[in-house]
Protein backbone atom coordinates (compact mmCIF):
# COMPACT_ATOMS: atom_id res chain seq x y z
CA UNK A 1 0.00 0.00 0.00
CA UNK A 2 3.13 2.15 0.18
CA UNK A 3 2.20 4.07 3.30
CA UNK A 4 4.50 3.67 6.27
CA UNK A 5 2.31 3.34 9.36
CA UNK A 6 4.08 4.72 12.40
CA UNK A 7 1.17 3.70 14.64
CA UNK A 8 1.86 0.03 13.80
CA UNK A 9 3.67 -0.69 17.07
CA UNK A 10 0.84 0.87 19.06
CA UNK A 11 -1.67 -1.50 17.40
CA UNK A 12 0.51 -4.50 18.31
CA UNK A 13 0.73 -3.25 21.92
CA UNK A 14 -3.06 -2.73 22.09
CA UNK A 15 -3.58 -6.26 20.74
CA UNK A 16 -1.41 -7.58 23.57
CA UNK A 17 -3.48 -5.68 26.17
CA UNK A 18 -6.81 -6.86 24.69
CA UNK A 19 -5.49 -10.42 24.89
CA UNK A 20 -4.35 -9.86 28.49
CA UNK A 21 -7.75 -8.41 29.44
CA UNK A 22 -9.66 -11.32 27.89
CA UNK A 23 -7.34 -13.81 29.62
CA UNK A 24 -7.55 -12.20 33.06
CA UNK A 25 -11.25 -11.29 33.13
CA UNK A 26 -12.86 -14.05 31.09
CA UNK A 27 -10.18 -16.74 30.97
CA UNK A 28 -10.06 -16.70 27.17
CA UNK A 29 -7.01 -18.52 25.84
CA UNK A 30 -4.60 -16.10 24.05
CA UNK A 31 -4.77 -18.12 20.82
CA UNK A 32 -8.58 -18.04 20.85
CA UNK A 33 -8.57 -14.29 21.36
CA UNK A 34 -6.71 -13.73 18.07
CA UNK A 35 -9.94 -13.30 16.04
CA UNK A 36 -11.41 -10.97 18.71
CA UNK A 37 -8.23 -8.89 18.66
CA UNK A 38 -8.29 -8.79 14.89
CA UNK A 39 -11.90 -7.61 14.84
CA UNK A 40 -11.23 -4.91 17.46
CA UNK A 41 -8.13 -3.59 15.69
CA UNK A 42 -9.86 -3.78 12.31
CA UNK A 43 -12.57 -1.51 13.78
CA UNK A 44 -10.01 0.93 15.16
CA UNK A 45 -8.11 0.95 11.86
CA UNK A 46 -11.35 1.58 9.98
CA UNK A 47 -12.27 4.50 12.27
CA UNK A 48 -8.96 6.33 11.78
CA UNK A 49 -8.55 5.63 8.05
CA UNK A 50 -9.59 9.11 6.89
CA UNK A 51 -6.78 11.12 8.48
CA UNK A 52 -4.35 8.28 7.68
CA UNK A 53 -5.29 8.43 3.99
CA UNK A 54 -3.67 11.89 3.74
CA UNK A 55 -0.41 9.88 4.15
CA UNK A 56 1.30 12.59 6.20
CA UNK A 57 3.55 10.51 8.41
CA UNK A 58 3.21 12.78 11.43
CA UNK A 59 -0.47 11.78 11.63
CA UNK A 60 0.25 8.11 12.29
CA UNK A 61 3.15 9.15 14.54
CA UNK A 62 0.81 11.31 16.65
CA UNK A 63 -1.91 8.67 16.60
CA UNK A 64 0.45 5.92 17.77
CA UNK A 65 1.84 8.06 20.59
CA UNK A 66 -1.66 9.06 21.67
CA UNK A 67 -2.65 5.36 21.87
CA UNK A 68 0.51 4.59 23.87
CA UNK A 69 -0.12 7.41 26.33
CA UNK A 70 -3.80 6.53 26.65
CA UNK A 71 -2.76 2.95 27.45
CA UNK A 72 -0.29 4.24 30.05
CA UNK A 73 -3.20 6.00 31.75
CA UNK A 74 -5.59 3.06 31.41
CA UNK A 75 -3.31 0.10 32.15
CA UNK A 76 -0.44 1.67 34.11
CA UNK A 77 3.29 1.51 33.34
CA UNK A 78 3.89 -1.96 34.88
CA UNK A 79 5.46 -4.77 32.87
CA UNK A 80 2.79 -7.37 32.04
CA UNK A 81 2.86 -10.89 30.71
CA UNK A 82 0.42 -13.78 30.31
CA UNK A 83 1.24 -16.97 32.20
CA UNK A 84 -0.53 -19.88 30.54
CA UNK A 85 0.11 -23.57 31.17
CA UNK A 86 2.17 -23.70 27.98
CA UNK A 87 4.05 -20.37 28.38
CA UNK A 88 7.76 -20.89 27.77
CA UNK A 89 7.32 -24.58 26.85
CA UNK A 90 8.52 -25.97 23.54
CA UNK A 91 4.96 -26.84 22.50
CA UNK A 92 3.77 -23.32 23.24
CA UNK A 93 6.61 -21.82 21.19
CA UNK A 94 5.95 -24.22 18.32
CA UNK A 95 2.26 -23.35 18.34
CA UNK A 96 3.10 -19.61 18.31
CA UNK A 97 5.35 -20.23 15.33
CA UNK A 98 2.64 -22.13 13.46
CA UNK A 99 0.08 -19.42 14.23
CA UNK A 100 2.50 -16.73 13.02
CA UNK A 101 3.05 -18.71 9.83
CA UNK A 102 -0.73 -18.95 9.42
CA UNK A 103 -1.01 -15.16 9.79
CA UNK A 104 1.67 -14.65 7.16
CA UNK A 105 -0.30 -16.81 4.71
CA UNK A 106 -3.52 -14.97 5.57
CA UNK A 107 -1.79 -11.65 4.86
CA UNK A 108 -0.44 -13.07 1.58
CA UNK A 109 -3.95 -14.20 0.60
CA UNK A 110 -5.47 -10.80 1.40
CA UNK A 111 -2.71 -9.02 -0.49
CA UNK A 112 -3.50 -11.18 -3.52
CA UNK A 113 -7.25 -10.49 -3.36
CA UNK A 114 -7.33 -6.76 -2.66
CA UNK A 115 -6.13 -4.10 -5.03
CA UNK A 116 -4.43 -1.80 -2.51
CA UNK A 117 -4.60 1.36 -4.58
CA UNK A 118 -8.39 1.16 -4.68
CA UNK A 119 -9.09 0.18 -1.08
CA UNK A 120 -6.61 2.14 1.00
CA UNK A 121 -8.93 2.30 4.01
CA UNK A 122 -9.59 -1.43 3.88
CA UNK A 123 -5.89 -2.26 3.54
CA UNK A 124 -5.09 -0.04 6.51
CA UNK A 125 -7.78 -1.72 8.63
CA UNK A 126 -6.51 -5.18 7.60
CA UNK A 127 -3.00 -4.07 8.51
CA UNK A 128 -4.27 -2.94 11.92
CA UNK A 129 -6.08 -6.28 12.39
CA UNK A 130 -2.90 -8.23 11.58
CA UNK A 131 -0.98 -6.06 14.06
CA UNK A 132 -3.62 -6.90 16.68
CA UNK A 133 -3.15 -10.63 16.04
CA UNK A 134 0.61 -10.15 16.27
CA UNK A 135 -0.08 -8.52 19.64
CA UNK A 136 -1.89 -11.67 20.85
CA UNK A 137 1.08 -13.80 19.86
CA UNK A 138 3.54 -11.34 21.41
CA UNK A 139 1.62 -11.51 24.68
CA UNK A 140 2.06 -15.29 24.91
CA UNK A 141 5.84 -15.26 24.76
CA UNK A 142 7.04 -11.82 25.85
CA UNK A 143 6.40 -9.30 28.58
CA UNK A 144 5.16 -5.88 27.48
CA UNK A 145 4.33 -2.36 28.68
CA UNK A 146 2.41 0.44 26.93
CA UNK A 147 5.73 1.99 25.83
CA UNK A 148 6.59 -1.23 23.96
CA UNK A 149 4.22 0.24 21.35
CA UNK A 150 6.84 2.86 20.49
CA UNK A 151 9.64 0.32 20.00
CA UNK A 152 7.74 -2.19 17.85
CA UNK A 153 7.52 0.25 14.92
CA UNK A 154 11.26 0.55 14.05
CA UNK A 155 11.47 -3.21 14.69
CA UNK A 156 8.76 -3.91 12.13
CA UNK A 157 10.33 -1.57 9.58
CA UNK A 158 13.74 -3.21 10.06
CA UNK A 159 12.16 -6.63 9.51
CA UNK A 160 10.45 -5.53 6.28
CA UNK A 161 13.59 -3.83 4.96
CA UNK A 162 15.74 -6.90 5.62
CA UNK A 163 13.25 -9.11 3.80
CA UNK A 164 12.44 -6.64 1.04
CA UNK A 165 9.55 -4.15 1.20
CA UNK A 166 6.33 -5.36 -0.42
CA UNK A 167 7.21 -9.03 -0.12
CA UNK A 168 5.37 -10.97 2.58
CA UNK A 169 7.54 -14.16 2.57
CA UNK A 170 10.55 -11.82 2.57
CA UNK A 171 9.19 -10.10 5.67
CA UNK A 172 8.90 -13.50 7.36
CA UNK A 173 12.53 -14.33 6.56
CA UNK A 174 13.56 -10.86 7.74
CA UNK A 175 11.73 -11.42 11.00
CA UNK A 176 13.58 -14.67 11.64
CA UNK A 177 16.95 -13.04 10.79
CA UNK A 178 16.27 -10.13 13.12
CA UNK A 179 15.07 -12.44 15.88
CA UNK A 180 18.30 -14.43 15.68
CA UNK A 181 20.43 -11.26 15.66
CA UNK A 182 18.59 -9.83 18.67
CA UNK A 183 18.87 -13.09 20.62
CA UNK A 184 22.59 -13.39 19.88
CA UNK A 185 23.20 -9.79 20.98
CA UNK A 186 21.22 -10.41 24.14
CA UNK A 187 23.30 -13.49 24.89
CA UNK A 188 26.71 -11.91 24.22
CA UNK A 189 26.35 -8.27 25.29
CA UNK A 190 23.26 -8.25 27.52
CA UNK A 191 19.64 -7.39 26.66
CA UNK A 192 20.26 -3.63 26.99
CA UNK A 193 21.73 -3.37 23.48
CA UNK A 194 18.83 -4.74 21.47
CA UNK A 195 17.53 -1.38 20.18
CA UNK A 196 21.03 -0.56 18.96
CA UNK A 197 21.01 -3.81 16.99
CA UNK A 198 17.62 -2.97 15.51
CA UNK A 199 18.93 0.44 14.44
CA UNK A 200 22.06 -1.13 12.97
CA UNK A 201 20.02 -3.65 10.98
CA UNK A 202 17.66 -0.90 9.87
CA UNK A 203 20.64 1.00 8.45
CA UNK A 204 22.02 -2.17 6.83
CA UNK A 205 18.59 -2.89 5.33
CA UNK A 206 18.34 0.65 3.96
CA UNK A 207 21.83 0.60 2.48
CA UNK A 208 21.39 -2.86 0.93
CA UNK A 209 18.21 -1.91 -0.92
CA UNK A 210 19.09 -2.19 -4.58
CA UNK A 211 17.20 0.73 -6.13
CA UNK A 212 15.98 2.99 -3.37
CA UNK A 213 14.77 5.78 -5.62
CA UNK A 214 12.30 3.56 -7.49
CA UNK A 215 10.72 1.77 -4.56
CA UNK A 216 8.74 4.72 -3.21
CA UNK A 217 6.62 4.41 -0.10
Amino acid sequence: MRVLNLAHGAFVMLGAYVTLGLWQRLGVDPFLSIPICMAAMFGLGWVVQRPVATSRILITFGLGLALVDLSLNLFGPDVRSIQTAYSGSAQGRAFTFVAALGLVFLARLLAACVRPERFQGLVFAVCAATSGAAGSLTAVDFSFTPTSGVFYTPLAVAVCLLGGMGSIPGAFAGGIALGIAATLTGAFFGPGWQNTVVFGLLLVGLLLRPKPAEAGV
Partner: protein
Amino acid sequence: MRRGVLGLLSAIVLAGAFVPSASALHALTLLFVFAIMAAAWNLVAGLAGVIDLGLVGFFGLGGYATGLLVAKTGLPFAVAWITGGLLCVGFAILMALALRRFPAPYFAVATLAASFALREVASNWTALTGGDAGLSLPPQLISARAMYFLMVGLLTVVLALTWWIGRHRPELVPAYAAMGWFVGLVGGAFACWTGFLDPAAAFDLGVTVEVIAMAVVGGVGTVGGPLAGAAVLTTLSALLNGYAPNFHLLALALLIALFQWLAPKGLMAAATAASGYYLRK
Protein backbone atom coordinates in the same frame (compact mmCIF):
# COMPACT_ATOMS: atom_id res chain seq x y z
CA MET B 1 7.66 44.57 9.60
CA ARG B 2 11.44 44.64 10.07
CA ARG B 3 11.16 47.46 12.62
CA GLY B 4 8.54 45.42 14.50
CA VAL B 5 10.86 42.41 14.66
CA LEU B 6 13.77 44.53 15.89
CA GLY B 7 11.53 46.13 18.51
CA LEU B 8 10.35 42.73 19.72
CA LEU B 9 13.90 41.43 19.94
CA SER B 10 15.19 44.38 21.91
CA ALA B 11 12.19 44.08 24.23
CA ILE B 12 13.09 40.42 24.82
CA VAL B 13 16.74 41.25 25.53
CA LEU B 14 15.78 44.09 27.89
CA ALA B 15 13.28 41.82 29.62
CA GLY B 16 16.12 39.39 30.29
CA ALA B 17 18.37 42.12 31.60
CA PHE B 18 15.82 43.56 33.99
CA VAL B 19 13.41 40.72 34.87
CA PRO B 20 13.40 40.81 38.66
CA SER B 21 12.23 37.31 39.52
CA ALA B 22 14.36 34.23 38.96
CA SER B 23 11.30 32.11 38.13
CA ALA B 24 10.18 34.43 35.31
CA LEU B 25 13.69 34.35 33.83
CA HIS B 26 13.67 30.55 34.12
CA ALA B 27 10.31 30.29 32.34
CA LEU B 28 11.43 32.59 29.51
CA THR B 29 14.70 30.66 29.11
CA LEU B 30 12.81 27.37 28.90
CA LEU B 31 10.48 28.85 26.27
CA PHE B 32 13.49 29.86 24.13
CA VAL B 33 15.16 26.46 24.62
CA PHE B 34 12.14 24.80 23.01
CA ALA B 35 11.63 27.56 20.42
CA ILE B 36 15.22 27.10 19.13
CA MET B 37 14.72 23.35 18.79
CA ALA B 38 11.33 23.81 17.07
CA ALA B 39 12.90 26.30 14.63
CA ALA B 40 15.81 23.90 14.02
CA TRP B 41 13.41 21.00 13.34
CA ASN B 42 11.53 23.33 10.99
CA LEU B 43 14.74 23.84 8.95
CA VAL B 44 14.58 20.15 8.04
CA ALA B 45 10.84 19.48 7.97
CA GLY B 46 9.58 22.81 6.70
CA LEU B 47 12.35 23.77 4.28
CA ALA B 48 14.09 20.53 3.22
CA GLY B 49 10.72 18.72 3.41
CA VAL B 50 11.89 15.67 5.40
CA ILE B 51 10.42 14.66 8.75
CA ASP B 52 12.91 13.95 11.54
CA LEU B 53 11.72 11.99 14.58
CA GLY B 54 15.06 11.69 16.36
CA LEU B 55 15.65 15.29 17.39
CA VAL B 56 16.16 14.40 21.04
CA GLY B 57 19.14 12.27 19.99
CA PHE B 58 21.07 15.48 19.24
CA PHE B 59 19.81 17.11 22.45
CA GLY B 60 21.18 14.19 24.47
CA LEU B 61 24.35 13.78 22.42
CA GLY B 62 25.20 17.48 22.77
CA GLY B 63 24.36 17.33 26.47
CA TYR B 64 26.51 14.28 27.18
CA ALA B 65 29.41 15.46 25.00
CA THR B 66 29.55 18.90 26.64
CA GLY B 67 28.91 17.60 30.14
CA LEU B 68 31.49 14.81 29.90
CA LEU B 69 34.14 17.11 28.43
CA VAL B 70 33.63 19.60 31.26
CA ALA B 71 33.40 16.98 34.01
CA LYS B 72 36.16 14.56 32.90
CA THR B 73 38.72 16.76 31.14
CA GLY B 74 38.12 20.07 32.91
CA LEU B 75 37.85 22.02 29.65
CA PRO B 76 36.26 25.47 30.00
CA PHE B 77 32.51 25.51 29.28
CA ALA B 78 32.76 27.48 26.02
CA VAL B 79 35.26 25.04 24.44
CA ALA B 80 33.33 21.96 25.54
CA TRP B 81 30.08 23.52 24.35
CA ILE B 82 31.32 24.25 20.82
CA THR B 83 33.00 20.81 20.62
CA GLY B 84 29.72 19.16 21.60
CA GLY B 85 27.90 21.14 18.91
CA LEU B 86 30.47 20.15 16.28
CA LEU B 87 30.18 16.47 17.28
CA CYS B 88 26.42 16.71 16.68
CA VAL B 89 27.05 18.33 13.28
CA GLY B 90 29.34 15.42 12.34
CA PHE B 91 26.77 12.86 13.44
CA ALA B 92 23.98 14.70 11.58
CA ILE B 93 26.03 14.83 8.36
CA LEU B 94 26.76 11.09 8.56
CA MET B 95 23.06 10.29 9.13
CA ALA B 96 21.88 12.58 6.34
CA LEU B 97 24.46 11.26 3.86
CA ALA B 98 23.51 7.66 4.65
CA LEU B 99 19.76 8.25 4.49
CA ARG B 100 19.22 10.99 1.90
CA ARG B 101 18.63 8.57 -0.98
CA PHE B 102 15.61 7.06 0.73
CA PRO B 103 11.97 8.12 0.80
CA ALA B 104 11.02 10.41 3.67
CA PRO B 105 9.21 7.79 5.82
CA TYR B 106 12.37 5.67 6.12
CA PHE B 107 14.29 8.76 7.19
CA ALA B 108 11.69 9.35 9.91
CA VAL B 109 11.88 5.78 11.26
CA ALA B 110 15.68 5.60 11.03
CA THR B 111 16.13 8.87 12.95
CA LEU B 112 13.66 7.65 15.61
CA ALA B 113 15.62 4.39 15.94
CA ALA B 114 18.92 6.34 16.09
CA SER B 115 17.68 8.33 19.09
CA PHE B 116 16.70 5.05 20.85
CA ALA B 117 20.12 3.59 20.07
CA LEU B 118 21.96 6.66 21.43
CA ARG B 119 19.93 6.40 24.62
CA GLU B 120 20.99 2.77 24.97
CA VAL B 121 24.62 3.71 24.56
CA ALA B 122 24.25 6.35 27.32
CA SER B 123 22.52 3.77 29.56
CA ASN B 124 24.97 0.92 28.97
CA TRP B 125 28.36 2.61 28.64
CA THR B 126 28.47 2.92 32.41
CA ALA B 127 32.22 3.52 32.67
CA LEU B 128 31.91 6.74 30.69
CA THR B 129 28.40 8.05 31.39
CA GLY B 130 27.57 6.62 34.80
CA GLY B 131 24.67 4.72 33.22
CA ASP B 132 21.06 5.12 34.33
CA ALA B 133 22.13 6.52 37.70
CA GLY B 134 23.12 9.70 35.88
CA LEU B 135 26.02 12.11 36.11
CA SER B 136 26.35 15.22 38.27
CA LEU B 137 28.19 18.12 36.64
CA PRO B 138 30.24 20.76 38.49
CA PRO B 139 27.83 23.40 39.88
CA GLN B 140 27.45 26.91 38.44
CA LEU B 141 28.94 26.16 35.01
CA ILE B 142 26.66 28.75 33.52
CA SER B 143 24.60 31.41 35.30
CA ALA B 144 20.86 31.80 34.75
CA ARG B 145 21.31 35.15 33.03
CA ALA B 146 24.14 33.93 30.78
CA MET B 147 21.97 30.96 29.77
CA TYR B 148 19.14 33.36 28.93
CA PHE B 149 21.31 35.47 26.64
CA LEU B 150 22.86 32.42 24.99
CA MET B 151 19.38 31.17 24.15
CA VAL B 152 18.25 34.60 22.86
CA GLY B 153 21.34 34.67 20.64
CA LEU B 154 20.80 31.15 19.27
CA LEU B 155 17.11 31.85 18.65
CA THR B 156 17.93 35.00 16.69
CA VAL B 157 20.48 33.14 14.56
CA VAL B 158 18.22 30.15 13.85
CA LEU B 159 15.28 32.38 12.87
CA ALA B 160 17.51 34.50 10.61
CA LEU B 161 18.84 31.29 9.05
CA THR B 162 15.29 30.05 8.44
CA TRP B 163 14.47 33.28 6.65
CA TRP B 164 17.68 33.12 4.59
CA ILE B 165 17.38 29.43 3.64
CA GLY B 166 13.74 29.99 2.70
CA ARG B 167 14.89 32.42 -0.01
CA HIS B 168 17.38 29.89 -1.42
CA ARG B 169 17.15 26.26 -2.43
CA PRO B 170 17.08 24.15 0.76
CA GLU B 171 19.12 20.92 0.70
CA LEU B 172 18.73 18.05 3.15
CA VAL B 173 22.35 17.54 4.25
CA PRO B 174 23.15 21.18 5.19
CA ALA B 175 19.70 21.63 6.74
CA TYR B 176 20.15 18.48 8.85
CA ALA B 177 23.67 19.55 9.85
CA ALA B 178 22.25 22.93 10.95
CA MET B 179 19.57 21.13 12.99
CA GLY B 180 22.26 19.01 14.65
CA TRP B 181 24.29 22.14 15.43
CA PHE B 182 21.46 24.11 17.06
CA VAL B 183 19.89 21.20 18.95
CA GLY B 184 23.32 19.97 20.09
CA LEU B 185 24.22 23.43 21.41
CA VAL B 186 20.87 23.71 23.19
CA GLY B 187 21.42 20.26 24.73
CA GLY B 188 24.94 21.13 25.88
CA ALA B 189 23.93 24.45 27.45
CA PHE B 190 20.83 22.87 29.01
CA ALA B 191 22.87 20.10 30.67
CA CYS B 192 25.34 22.60 32.16
CA TRP B 193 22.47 24.87 33.23
CA THR B 194 20.64 22.08 35.12
CA GLY B 195 23.92 20.47 36.30
CA PHE B 196 22.72 16.89 35.86
CA LEU B 197 22.56 14.32 33.06
CA ASP B 198 20.69 11.03 32.87
CA PRO B 199 19.65 8.95 29.85
CA ALA B 200 15.92 9.03 30.61
CA ALA B 201 15.77 12.84 30.60
CA ALA B 202 18.51 13.58 28.04
CA PHE B 203 16.97 11.23 25.45
CA ASP B 204 13.31 11.64 26.45
CA LEU B 205 11.04 10.99 23.45
CA GLY B 206 8.70 13.56 25.02
CA VAL B 207 11.16 16.34 24.03
CA THR B 208 10.92 15.33 20.37
CA VAL B 209 7.14 15.20 20.61
CA GLU B 210 6.89 18.61 22.30
CA VAL B 211 9.20 20.22 19.74
CA ILE B 212 7.34 18.71 16.77
CA ALA B 213 4.01 19.75 18.27
CA MET B 214 5.27 23.35 18.58
CA ALA B 215 6.41 23.52 14.96
CA VAL B 216 3.24 21.80 13.68
CA VAL B 217 0.85 23.96 15.71
CA GLY B 218 2.73 27.17 14.88
CA GLY B 219 3.18 26.43 11.20
CA VAL B 220 5.73 24.17 9.47
CA GLY B 221 7.80 26.03 6.90
CA THR B 222 7.18 29.55 8.23
CA VAL B 223 9.81 31.71 9.97
CA GLY B 224 7.77 32.74 13.01
CA GLY B 225 5.64 29.58 13.32
CA PRO B 226 7.91 27.59 15.63
CA LEU B 227 8.30 30.56 18.01
CA ALA B 228 4.53 31.17 18.04
CA GLY B 229 3.91 27.44 18.56
CA ALA B 230 6.47 27.36 21.39
CA ALA B 231 4.71 30.26 23.12
CA VAL B 232 1.25 28.64 22.77
CA LEU B 233 2.34 25.14 23.79
CA THR B 234 4.56 26.21 26.69
CA THR B 235 1.51 27.90 28.17
CA LEU B 236 -0.65 24.85 27.47
CA SER B 237 2.00 22.51 28.90
CA ALA B 238 2.23 24.57 32.09
CA LEU B 239 -1.56 24.34 32.48
CA LEU B 240 -1.61 20.60 31.73
CA ASN B 241 1.29 19.87 34.09
CA GLY B 242 -0.60 21.73 36.78
CA TYR B 243 -4.01 20.11 36.34
CA ALA B 244 -3.59 16.85 34.38
CA PRO B 245 0.09 15.85 34.25
CA ASN B 246 -0.69 12.33 33.02
CA PHE B 247 -2.32 13.64 29.86
CA HIS B 248 0.51 15.93 28.74
CA LEU B 249 1.99 13.64 26.09
CA LEU B 250 -1.46 12.48 24.98
CA ALA B 251 -2.53 16.09 24.34
CA LEU B 252 0.65 16.86 22.38
CA ALA B 253 0.33 13.70 20.26
CA LEU B 254 -3.32 14.43 19.48
CA LEU B 255 -2.48 18.05 18.60
CA ILE B 256 0.16 16.84 16.12
CA ALA B 257 -2.25 14.40 14.47
CA LEU B 258 -5.21 16.81 14.40
CA PHE B 259 -3.24 19.81 13.09
CA GLN B 260 -1.59 17.69 10.40
CA TRP B 261 -4.98 16.35 9.35
CA LEU B 262 -7.16 19.46 9.52
CA ALA B 263 -4.78 22.44 9.47
CA PRO B 264 -1.40 21.32 8.08
CA LYS B 265 -0.26 24.94 7.69
CA GLY B 266 -0.72 25.68 11.39
CA LEU B 267 -1.69 28.80 13.30
CA MET B 268 0.58 31.18 11.36
CA ALA B 269 -1.34 30.54 8.14
CA ALA B 270 -4.63 31.01 9.97
CA ALA B 271 -3.37 34.28 11.49
CA THR B 272 -2.12 35.54 8.13
CA ALA B 273 -5.42 34.64 6.46
CA ALA B 274 -7.43 36.31 9.24
CA SER B 275 -5.35 39.50 9.23
CA GLY B 276 -5.59 39.68 5.43
CA TYR B 277 -9.36 39.26 5.66
CA TYR B 278 -9.83 42.02 8.22
CA LEU B 279 -7.35 44.42 6.63
CA ARG B 280 -9.13 44.17 3.28
CA LYS B 281 -12.49 45.05 4.86
